[in-house]
């Protein structure tokens, strides 16, 4: 490590955080407010509540009473999971962890008075605010599409009714029909997600509608696990998937939701289903809190605190932290580092060094699972990738099956880590 002033201050800050006297508060227990009950927010709320053993008041603001995980929602499309399998409630977090779960929208953050305004009226004060709002879509990113088109051309990139709708549309496709996907530009939630979805759609069509076609218009020249997916598409779904990358005009796309047409590089095609996954940005509350720069919220790598406000932390997809992909696993990993730092700042508990990791499993066909993973460390500038691995092409069926079974185990693990 090169010792420079910034590194020194960074390290000293960590020590100070471990030993500074607990914050002097006007009254009562310190208050942590978490906005967003997904992989980042639910995990952070649970860990702060669990580890502070009642010393910190935790409020979780999440509009949905039933949370559908975005991870594994492709497996629902493929028929490998029921929608109820990916549905979770916040009952345990409230009952067993004493978290004050508020089902409402956070509609504003007043950083001077340190309070979060709710759509239903009133506001919640905080000492530390953790924002984990996931993603929203960039307006005008795909010509012809806006949120009012989402019933005709679903994004299904926030799980729940959109996922159900997309599945119903796939099942209703006419024989030999066409499924189109407009893939998003970098950076976006779940790098292998669109391509796992293509695989799952192909799996369903192969069984029910084997002459159907899949077209993917992609603004990128390459994507995560590309060789693994392309090998899988060729092995399992030969001739069904037509991926049109940047080199072939995949980035020049417009859609017409009324006419159900997609125009790729000037060529118009009539389609039966069109899954539009637009460019993404941080969930809107991050922007309203004034902690975004461009589309995302920059954070400090050591503790996920916002670069704009030391009392606000941003987790998961909404954050701009460096090398970690936007994934549920990443958000969960970041949440634990953040919870430890927040607890240290509020109660003087020990602050341990940040460790981050991520693994993304994808399913290509029944029992054909692949994965990519990495470990990350905090540098003064960012969260940096230091090591990693990826499944190889040509792996044997037993290994692929074991990888898939491992993903089921991970799902059970992470969801109990999030929701208790």
């Amino acid at each position: 490590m090169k010792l420079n002033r910034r590194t020194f201050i960074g390290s000293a800050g960590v020590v100070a955080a471990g030993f500074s006297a607990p914050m002097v508060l006007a009254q009562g227990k310190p208050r942590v407010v978490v906005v967003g009950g997904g992989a980042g927010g639910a995990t952070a709320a649970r860990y702060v509540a669990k580890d502070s053993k009642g010393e910190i008041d935790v409020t979780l603001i999440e509009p949905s009473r039933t949370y559908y995980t975005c991870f594994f929602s492709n497996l629902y499309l493929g028929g490998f999971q029921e929608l109820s399998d990916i549905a979770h409630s916040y009952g345990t977090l409230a009952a067993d962890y004493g978290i004050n779960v508020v089902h409402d929208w956070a509609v504003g953050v007043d950083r001077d008075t340190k309070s979060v305004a709710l759509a239903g009226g009133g506001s919640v004060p905080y000492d530390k605010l953790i924002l984990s709002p996931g993603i929203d879509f960039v307006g005008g990113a795909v010509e012809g599409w806006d949120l009012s088109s989402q019933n005709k051309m679903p994004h299904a990139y926030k799980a729940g009714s959109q996922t159900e709708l997309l599945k119903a549309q796939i099942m209703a496709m006419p024989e030999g029909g066409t499924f189109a996907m407009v893939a998003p530009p970098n950076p976006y939630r779940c790098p292998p997600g669109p391509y796992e979805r293509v695989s799952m759609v192909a799996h369903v069509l192969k069984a029910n509608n084997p002459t159907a076609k899949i077209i993917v218009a992609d603004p990128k020249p390459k994507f995560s696990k590309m060789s693994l997916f392309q090998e899988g598409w060729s092995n399992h779904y030969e001739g069904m998937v037509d991926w049109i990358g940047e080199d072939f005009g995949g980035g020049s796309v417009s859609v017409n939701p009324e006419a159900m047409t997609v125009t790729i590089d000037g060529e118009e095609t009539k389609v039966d289903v069109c899954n539009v996954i637009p460019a993404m940005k941080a969930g809107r509350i991050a922007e309203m809190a004034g902690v975004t720069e461009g589309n995302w919220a920059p954070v400090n790598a050591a503790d996920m605190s916002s670069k704009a406000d030391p009392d606000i932390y941003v987790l998961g997809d909404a954050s701009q932290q460096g090398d970690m992909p936007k994934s549920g696993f990443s958000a969960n990993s970041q949440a634990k580092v953040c919870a430890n730092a927040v607890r240290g700042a509020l109660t003087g508990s020990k602050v341990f060094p940040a460790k981050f990791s991520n693994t993304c499993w994808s399913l290509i066909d029944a029992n054909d699972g692949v994965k990519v993973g990495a470990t990350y460390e905090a540098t003064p500038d960012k969260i940096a990738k230091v090591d990693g691995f990826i499944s190889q092409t040509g792996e044997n069926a037993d290994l692929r099956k074991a990888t898939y079974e491992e993903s089921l185990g991970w799902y059970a693990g992470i969801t109990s880590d999030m929701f208790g």
Partner: protein
Amino acid sequence: MRLPHQLFFVIVGGVLTPVIATAEDLGDAEAGKVVFEKCSSCHQVGKGAENKIGPHLNGVFGRKAAGLEGFNYSKSLTRAGNSGLEWHADTLSDYVENPRAFASGTRMNFAGLKNPEDRANVVAYLRGFSDNPSDIPEADPTAKGTDHSIDPEILAIQGDPEYGAYLSNECTTCHQIEGGDEGIPSIVYWPAEDFVVALHAYKEKKRPHPVMQMIAGRLNNDEIAALAAYFNNPE
């Protein structure tokens, strides 16, 4: 100034607290830009870069040696590529240190960069023109990991259960604390000794499993002991 990148512990107020040694950058990319001027008479990099006397260097990290279609490489480098040579931070650094020593017969007519700092910096500069791991998670690392083999004399937090509980956060993303074992094995109430032996076997890559090798690879001896103590009897 260079420090061994280790986890140091300092005693403040009688309590042992870790000081985080952050991961080491590949080098100083800004300084590397200047070093690259020595290369730029033959190699282009960045937006619109094309093959000139040498191949363009966009996306070079993770690429097979002599792997760019449409460039006329030497037989020597082509053979190295076919034998499995890929360009990563370490191999690129070795190559530019002395190209002819690395691949005799290479057409790269360059005396070499003898100064290790120059090499690290130019590698860091070039890294900015290959895939970003936030978009392509399997893309090459952008920093060197902390060395987690630690002298026990420096570090004496044996079996700190609180630390073990904290470290276990990383395990419970996959291994359920309630002990479920579908797809991923249960690790709760595991005898401490077995736990330690298993984790060290992963760390030394004797046990096969990429995720566990990666996770154990960055746990030091005391961290493994702390985890073993915690999982032996969580709560």
